């Protein structure tokens, strides 16, 4: 498929464990975004990459959250020492050439449950 893919789709972690969530954006898309969506809420911005550069990480809730996109394509969101409040769906989105469209294409998300 040509859409944004995320893996795993579901992740259960025990409190204190580290997790890594993967995002494969649409091929050729320059911009990549991570969002956190709590149950019954809208997605909340976490961080944004333009190619491999992380231009905005103002939404990361704590220094336990870390994101990278080393080659400007695949991105990984890592959460260290998970806490129960980290339980949410983590959405990745990508968008195309700069200045053309704000349309972001979302992946299906990874549902993280911290027990």
């Amino acid at each position, binding site marked *: 498929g040509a859409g944004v893919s995320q893996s795993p789709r579901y992740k259960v972690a025990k409190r204190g464990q580290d997790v890594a969530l993967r995002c494969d954006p649409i091929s050729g898309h320059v911009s990549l975004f991570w*969002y956190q969506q709590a149950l019954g809420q*809208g997605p909340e911005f976490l961080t944004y990459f333009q190619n491999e550069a992380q231009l*905005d990480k*103002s939404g990361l809730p704590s220094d336990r959250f870390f994101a990278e996109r080393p080659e400007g394509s695949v991105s990984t969101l890592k959460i260290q020492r998970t806490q129960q409040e980290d339980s949410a769906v983590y959405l990745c989105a990508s968008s195309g050439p700069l200045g053309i469209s704000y349309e972001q*294409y979302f*992946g*299906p998300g990874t549902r993280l449950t911290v027990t």
Partner: protein
Amino acid sequence: GESVGLHLPTLSVQEGDNSIINCAYSNSASDYFIWYKQESGKGPQFIIDIRSNMDKRQGQRVTVLLNKTVKHLSLQIAATQPGDSAVYFCAETAGDDKIIFGKGTRLHILP
């Protein structure tokens, strides 16, 4: 507080009728607004967008209206179908690629 929100958390509409979903925003610097549809277990899907220099934009069966005077955004869906059942989010951006989402309205279609 949030800069984008919705008036109603749930909306029930008879199949075939028109649906109107409303949204209020507070950031007057926002210059681009988007409506997303999110079905259960899926990521948000782009429906339609509008720039702040426009009042109305039409797509296929959907229309977005923007009233900058009262900072109000609405999504109209014509001839609502069962497949329109989802949560609808309005979202805004001030041109920095960071999109701010509202809480969402769940649309129920009655047979």
